[in-house]
């Protein structure tokens, strides 16, 4: 019998912390600069090789739609990058939200890696951005979000496009925290078969169904060499794969990460946890994200407009999933809540809208 242990033991895996980017969602993008610096320094000292620092929705994400950042991406990057001894700071960049000028700014601040993110079927909007990432000398990653929404073979096609634009690593991203281990195995295996040997593969999980650790292990077994997680699981929805938990598991499974597990535990416990409004947990709304396959960051606006219009957040999230809304469409949350509230007679037809064709 092939054990999971035999498939992962001895491998080298690079851990990438998301607490200062995906965790920005949980903080509604309000992490103070000094906290950002302290956590990044702690992660660096714990040997985490890659740390992402950006607005939750990436460069240029600060907006009415996604929420304004307490500081600009540039302010965060200029404060954090010079404090790093070994870790490389990465940024998230979503074509359609961020512009090439913002990516140039990030490189100028000393960011060394970029995740260029598109929906799992739209890789061809990333050509300019991946190209610029390479031109700027960044470790350039193609980040295919909501990967559960397309068949594995189609995901491979998109990954090949990103590879052809110059991406050096391709990620399978479970933005909704919907995937189960077999689904991860299937996708990573096909990606490993199709991509060039020198192209790396990564996995980014969310913990909405509590599968972050198991899915990440499955990804390594199938050939992934980069795994995203967050100290204390600080990320959208029920959070990302809790990085200190994952580091401990990898240590027991003899996977080499170079991370000091105890030091990482301390960062999670002493620095990240005290900052959280509440620790990420698969409450009924976060669990609904995973169960219905909905973009994890929709959680916050859904809760906000649930309160405003009296429609339960869970109902709004299920409806967004039914309408096949994808990452970036936060604007449709209020729209959907309004439409549902009107259908349910919670608001008058004329109270918010005089005309509806």
């Amino acid at each position, binding site marked *: 019998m092939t054990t999971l242990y035999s498939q992962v033991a001895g491998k080298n895996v690079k851990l990438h912390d998301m607490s200062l980017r995906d965790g920005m969602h949980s903080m509604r993008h309000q992490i103070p600069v000094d906290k950002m610096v302290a956590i990044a320094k702690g992660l660096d000292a714990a040997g985490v090789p890659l740390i992402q620092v950006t607005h939750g929705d990436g460069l*240029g994400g600060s*907006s*009415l*739609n996604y929420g304004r950042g307490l500081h600009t991406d540039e302010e965060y990057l200029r404060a954090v990058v010079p404090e790093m001894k070994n870790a490389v700071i990465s940024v998230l960049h979503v*074509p*359609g*939200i961020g*512009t*090439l000028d913002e990516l140039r700014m990030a490189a100028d601040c000393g960011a060394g890696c970029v995740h260029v993110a598109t*929906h799992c*079927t*739209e890789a*061809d*909007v990333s*050509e*300019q*951005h991946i190209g610029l990432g390479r031109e700027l000398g960044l470790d350039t990653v193609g980040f295919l979000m909501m990967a559960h*929404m*397309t068949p594995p073979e189609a995901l491979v096609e998109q990954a090949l496009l990103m590879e052809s634009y110059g991406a050096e690593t391709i990620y399978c991203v479970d933005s909704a925290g919907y995937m189960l281990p077999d689904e991860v195995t299937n996708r990573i295996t096909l990606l490993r078969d199709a991509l060039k040997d020198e192209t790396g593969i990564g996995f980014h999980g969310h913990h909405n169904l509590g599968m972050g650790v198991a899915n990440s292990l499955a990804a390594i077994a199938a050939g992934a060499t980069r795994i995203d997680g967050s100290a204390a699981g600080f990320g959208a929805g029920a959070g990302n794969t809790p990085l200190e938990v994952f580091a401990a598991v990898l240590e027991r499974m003899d996977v080499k990460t170079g991370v000091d597990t105890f030091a990482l535990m301390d960062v999670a416990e002493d620095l990240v946890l005290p900052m959280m409004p509440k620790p990420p947990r698969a409450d009924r709304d976060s669990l609904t994200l995973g169960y219905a396959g909905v973009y994890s960051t929709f959680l916050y606006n859904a809760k906000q407009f649930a309160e405003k219009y009296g429609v339960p957040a869970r109902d709004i999230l299920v409806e967004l999933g039914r*309408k*096949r*809304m*994808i*990452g*970036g*469409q*936060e*604007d*449709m949350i*209020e*729209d959907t809540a*309004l*439409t549902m509230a009107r259908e349910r007679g919670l608001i008058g037809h004329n109270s*918010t*809208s*005089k*005309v*509806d*064709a």
Partner: protein
Amino acid sequence: MTKVKCAIIGPGNIGTDLLYKLLRSDVLEPVWMVGVDPTSEGLARAKELGLKTTDQGVDGLVPHVLEDGVQIAFDATSAYVHADNSRKLNALGVLMIDLTPAAIGPLCVPPVNLARLAGEKVMNVNMVTCAGQATIPMVNAVSRVQPVDYAEIIATVASLSIGPGTRKNIDEFTRTTSNAVAKVGGAGRGKAIVVVNPAEPPLMMRDTVYCETADEPDREAITDSVHAMIKEVQKYVPGYRLKNGPTFDGRKVAIFLEVEGLGDFLPKYAGNLDIMTAAGARTAEMFAREILDGTITLTPIPAEEAA
């Protein structure tokens, strides 16, 4: 009745949809379709519909401009070749309606600034982007009531309705739209976000407009202004609808729109393409009326003076 003769450059989806709209116009007559690929379906279709065609690009059209009396040309190619097309045709006194994001000429969003542009001596007008056409009228609907410090738009289009050109140049698309949201919409600063959604069946174009007013928003006046502006846009895009809002949260005004296309050539969900071709046709019609009644005379721009 005399009509103004037009050429369309670019026989793709946009050019073909535009052709159907021009064929219905009472002041415009499409006479030339210009492409670069002899096997193009768009060229064949235009030929069937009685147009002259060339697969030699704009150089294939130039020798015929004067003899065929072409006065208006639509460019539905790409930002990269537009400048060259425009220079060659402007030199012959042809007015360019630019449907690419090149933005050489003034930006035009018909219900906001067409009347003013038509009164100026311009030989090239740019139709911004589909996202700009769908959202800028609403930014203007708010900014004409009271000052807007910041406007932000989110345009979601169906994956099938957005072609390889736009995908390759999504950064220009985003920046051109952001710029026009501020400049034409009348906001202090502008931001545009573009989302491409692959759902099946394809989603209709959705647009959300957020405006941050300088002071407390005048809810009643803004609501009335938004409804009036919806009616203005519906004159040329009947499927332009207010789905929800305006809603108010502090100084933030939110307006939720849907754009259904006419389905001339492109499917109805592709409201983003329809609003571009409809805005282009409407702009050309306004100029055509002024050409026909003698209000304006098109003046050739010698090639060496052109941009």
